[in-house]
């Protein structure tokens, strides 16, 4: 009798472990709809930029890979502004895995950069922001393109270099009818110290610096295919 009890116990244990492994690796449950904390502003200057208190550079790793969300990095791969004039780097040197680049200057006109830098991208944009804070569409398809890039039925995580562009993007989306409670300004890549960093900038043996832009998932907008309003 005791022998049978042993065998049954072993079988039960093996069965439980096996079921766990099957569930974890063979039949994984899709990224769940775990409840997200409501958007809440950080304190100080970061809050004024719109950076979220709960879901930001320090915590975003916990929220990556959700199938009910989109992740957008609003930087340009190479900013036309002369940032080298102020000792900077115009290029996107890294990003958080899972985020896809949608250059903010392609979406709306940007102004107010340092004089030494000159103008950033001044080409075509989907929208124009007026001095009174309103937006107008430059193309017939502008809103459709925007909805395709930032689906209204998804959670939207926004990131840029320091939180500036992502804050402006959230304001723009809310102004154009998006639900602000589903948009998180995650902040800036420069403050990210998590485990999902992807380096784009690389130094060669001879000291030359190269950028592996091929690594970056980018949403380009071909304005030639759009109908001007």
């Amino acid at each position: 009798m005791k022998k049978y009890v042993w065998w049954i116990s072993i079988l039960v244990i093996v069965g439980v472990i096996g079921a766990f492994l099957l569930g974890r690796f063979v039949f994984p449950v899709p990224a769940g709809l775990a409840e997200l904390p409501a958007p809440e502003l950080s304190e100080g200057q970061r809050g004024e930029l719109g950076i979220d208190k709960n879901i930001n550079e320090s915590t975003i790793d916990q929220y990556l890979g959700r199938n009910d969300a989109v992740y957008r990095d609003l930087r340009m791969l190479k900013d036309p502004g002369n940032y080298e004039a102020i000792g900077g780097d115009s290029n996107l040197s890294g990003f958080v895995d899972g985020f896809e680049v949608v250059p903010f200057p392609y979406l709306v006109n940007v102004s107010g950069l340092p004089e030494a830098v000159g103008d950033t991208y001044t080409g075509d944009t989907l929208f124009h922001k007026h001095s009174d804070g309103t937006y107008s569409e430059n193309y017939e398809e502008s809103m459709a393109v925007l909805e395709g890039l930032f689906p209204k039925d998804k959670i939207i995580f926004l990131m840029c270099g320091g939180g500036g562009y992502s804050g402006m993007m959230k304001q723009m989306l809310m102004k154009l009818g998006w639900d602000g409670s589903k948009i998180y300004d995650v902040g800036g890549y420069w403050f990210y110290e998590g485990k999902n960093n992807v380096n784009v900038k690389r130094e060669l043996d001879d000291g030359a610096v190269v950028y592996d832009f091929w690594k970056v998932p980018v949403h380009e907008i071909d304005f030639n295919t759009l109908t001007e309003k």
Partner: protein
Amino acid sequence: MGNNKINDKKSARIRKVTKGLRSSASKKRADNTMVERGALVYEAVEKNKQKNVLGLIVGLIVVLMASILFMGAVSGWFNDGKVMLDREYVCDGECEMMEMTADLYEELIKKKGSFVVFVDQSGCTTADKLRGFVQNWADENKVKIYKMMFSDARDTSLHNSVKYYPSVAVISNGVPVAWLRADENEDSDAYNDEGAFTEWINRFF
């Protein structure tokens, strides 16, 4: 006759005993005196010892305080908490910000330098306003300050203090003594208003 002899013997014995007793008593008295004297001497020696130890402690404290005062005077501790910038940071004409790398920062820290550094990051519009405040202050006060990219600052000991950019850090004798905090409401005014920024930074000079 016989009784007299016994009495004599008895008396002699008594005399002997009493003499002995007297000797021991006087000896005892003498001993006691010696003990008393010894005790007195001991007490005096102990008191002296205590005085010496106390004197030594007081002397040490005085020397220590003098050293502290001397060091304070030399290093400028007692200057109402103000920072004394190194002379090389005084400028005559335009006070353009100087580029600072991570290596340069650590070198100046090692040399216990006193300077101001603006923590910026290119490609981002968040620092524009503060950059203007900092440059204006530098021009008005004829002070050369450093500018360091946050991407470099992250790799220095400054990152222990400055977690977010833009920021302005005041370094005194190799130690960051003050910096603007982008994640604190208390420092919000300094980011948004030039008067508030000037008031903040002037506290240290």
